[in-house]
Every structure is written in C-alpha cells, then in structure tokens.
C-alpha cells in the first residue's frame, strides 16, 4: 500500500510543480484562454465546459488554481479522494481548453490518479489519518498494482511499436540515428548536433536500447519486472539530462514506486527503524 501512497504524492507533486512553472513564466492567462480572448490555441475541445459555465475569462484561471489546490491536498492527504477527483476533472478541463499543451504525460498521470481513487492510496501518508484519528491502511487489493503495472507496460509497448512503425531505422544503422536527431533538436534538446555527430554510434546503441526496452516492457508484468524497470529509469534520467521536456521524465518516474513496490516497502521499513 505504501508504494501507492508514494505514487499518489509523487504524481500530484509533478502536476503541481508543472503548473507552478506555467505561472512562474506568466503563461496562465495566455495558455488557458480561447483564441478570441488572446489565447494561443485556435481550437478548444467541445468538452471545455467551464467557459460556458463561468465565462471564458474566468474559466482558465479557475481550472488552473483548482487543479493546484487539489494537488496540494492530494499530496498532503487532506480530503484526498474528493481532492483527487476534483483535481483530475479540473486538470482535464485545462487540457480541453488548451489541447496542444495536454500531452501524453498529462493523460497518463490523470489515468493513474483516477485508478488510485479505487485503492487505499488515500489512507497512507495522509494528514487525514491524524485529523480523523484513524489508522493508516497498509494493504490494498493486488489487482490495483497489477492493473497499474499492466497499464504502464502497455504505454511503453505502444510507444516502442509506434516508433518502429513510423521509423524502422530505430533498429538500423543510419547516418543520423533517430535518437541523435531527437536529442540534438534545438527546439527541445540540449545537445549540439555538430559536436555529437562524431559519436552517432552512442545514439545508435541508445536507439536499439530504447526499442528493445520499450517493446520488451511486458517483462514488467513478471518477476523480473523491478529489474527491467531499472532500464526505464535509466532511459528517463537520460531524457531529463539531454532534453527539455518539463515534467515528462519526472512524471513517468513518479510511477516507478509501483514497479519497485517491494524495494520501496523495504526501504520505508528501514527508514522507520
């Protein structure tokens, strides 16, 4: 149970910091506004209902700050389940209001938080336990872990198969491997393409590793899962160091307590002693 509590806190924390970054750079009123009111995106989803309910100008900031408050409450474990549900809905409204900025990681984290609603993740590492004077619940049905691991594995397998379908040279020896072109892209990467062109063999190896690891992510569902997940952590840390993708790597790593449940529980036991 405790790994799910850690995931709850980590996921909410990632979303919170990601949204605070939007506020820090002064983009709340620009991103979450309709195009007619000065927003960036020409299209909003029909499901962007908040602007019908409370007006276009208030809708974006309302959804934004509601999500932030709910993520704080989710992290602290105060009114956790209602906060999680309201936070998910408000966060989804932000995506409906500004679709280009609602990326795969946002959808993944919303789905994971939604799944955690049906577990006892709110009953551990929660201030509610003190407020309501109740004992934490340290167990949860196994299906919760299994379903979440299955979802994570499916995401990675889809990513790997999608890569190969789009660009078979992920498993080739091209002059400019896909991974090289991705991490040296000035729009998103940190690496200089002119400097790293002499080391494309590294990126060829990395491209192969990425595909083998992603398509092999079904191993996550086996007893070797925690060890396989080490490869995923390596991949995500590498992405965080070489690219500017915001919360993508950290959001995915926030799910890894699920994959490393045994180690996380053992680690928490050691901390308690």
């Amino acid at each position, binding site marked *: 149970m405790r790994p799910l509590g850690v995931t709850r806190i980590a996921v909410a924390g990632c979303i919170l910091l990601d949204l605070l970054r939007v506020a820090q750079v002064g983009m709340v009123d620009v991103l979450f506004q309709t195009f007619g009111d000065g927003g960036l995106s020409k299209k909003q989803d029909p499901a962007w209902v908040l602007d019908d309910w409370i007006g276009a100008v208030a809708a974006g900031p309302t959804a934004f700050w509601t999500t932030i408050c709910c993520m704080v409450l989710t992290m602290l474990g105060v009114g956790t389940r209602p906060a999680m549900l309201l936070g998910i809905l408000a966060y989804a409204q932000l995506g*409906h209001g500004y679709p280009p900025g609602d990326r795969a990681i946002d959808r993944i984290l919303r789905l994971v938080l939604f799944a955690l609603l049906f577990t006892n993740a709110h009953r551990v590492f929660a201030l509610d336990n003190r407020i309501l004077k109740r004992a934490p619940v340290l167990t949860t049905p196994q299906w919760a872990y299994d379903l979440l691991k299955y979802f994570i594995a499916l995401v990675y397998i889809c990513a790997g*198969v999608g890569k190969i379908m*789009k660009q078979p040279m992920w498993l080739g020896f091209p002059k400019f491997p896909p991974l090289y072109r991705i991490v040296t892209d000035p729009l*998103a990467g*940190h690496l200089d393409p002119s400097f790293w062109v002499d080391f494309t063999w590294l990126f060829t190896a990395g491209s192969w590793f990425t595909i083998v690891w992603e398509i092999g992510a079904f191993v996550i569902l086996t007893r070797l899962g925690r060890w396989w997940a080490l490869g995923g952590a390596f991949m995500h840390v590498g992405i965080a160091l070489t690219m500017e993708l915001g919360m993508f790597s950290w959001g995915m790593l926030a799910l890894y307590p699920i994959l490393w449940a045994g180690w996380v529980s053992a680690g928490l036991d050691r901390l308690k002693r």
Partner: protein
Amino acid sequence: MWPHVRAALVLVVGAVILILGTPGLDAMQHSELGDEDERQELREQIGPFWAGIGIGIADFNREHRLPLHRALHTLEIPIRGAQNWALYRDGPNRVRRLEIWVDDELKHRSADPEHDWLAPQLRMRRVRPMVETTTMQTMAQNWEGLSRFIVRRAVAEWPEAERVELRAIWTPFPGDGETTVHHRIVAVAPEWQVVHL
C-alpha cells in the same frame, strides 16, 4: 458475490485500456490501407504474404477496433484519458531553429543562450509543440496564436519597435551546412497584424 463482480470489472477495465491503446493500432489512421492503390503498392513493396497481414490488421482496426474506440471515447472525456501513446516516434529530419527579430536585431534563437529572449516560455513543454509545428510547417494550425503572443510581448518590451519577424531556419544535419530561411511570419507597426510569408 462482490469479489466476482469486482474481478469482472477489473477485466473489463483491462480490456478497455487495451482496446483504446492497442500497440501499433493506436497509431494507425482510419483510412490507412483502405484504398486498393495503397494496398497494391504495399504488395509490390513487401510481397503479398506480408502485405496481406498488414492489410488484415488495418481492416481489423477500421472495422472492429475503431468503432469500439469511438463508443468508449465518451467514457474518457471527463478525465481526458484518450489513449495514444505514440511518444517521440521519430526525430526531425533537419536541424530546425526559430529566430525572432525585432527591428533587424536578433532577440531569440532556439538553443542559443546569447539570444534567449522568451526562451523560458517558448521551450516550456506546453508551448514547444506549437513552436515546433510553426517552425516545421508553412501553415501550422496555431501559427497565428503563437505569432500574436510573440509580437505582443515584443511590443510590450520594445514599444518603439517597428517590425517583428519570426524566421523558420532549416539546416541539414549535423547543422553546419547550408542554412535556409524556410518561411517567415512578419508583423509591422502600427497594426501589428501577423502575416505569413
């Protein structure tokens, strides 16, 4: 009774997740391999046996999976959990940079620390996709919104400015070859209407 119902629900959820995000199929379009010319081209490329498998998969996706996907789509709208896990399928085929010029002075160039005006905003993960499409495509869907934002910020910071220009700079890999200005977006005082050139 409840444990059995719960087990069935968990199975249903697992099946829904798989239908909505089937590896490989989630990246296929409805029209893919629907055309006989397209199918024939595939047969010529990879042989009738493998083409038959590909066509069969495309037909299954179009006739069975996508209708189920559309039916289930309503369920995911409130939480916006649409399933397409095509994460970074390929890199760009050239080095692309966005340059922002204000009155013949370079203010921003992608990944250039000496010209980093608006870099925190333009490199932010929620804005970067717009910068990418605006730099990659001549008439990206959101070029107008992005350009308008940049122009307004430029005018606020440099009220005396007369002209703001966005340039999409393309260079073949590894980035030290011939550079071309693929397309531009310009706004001129006093109207500051963004125009695609």
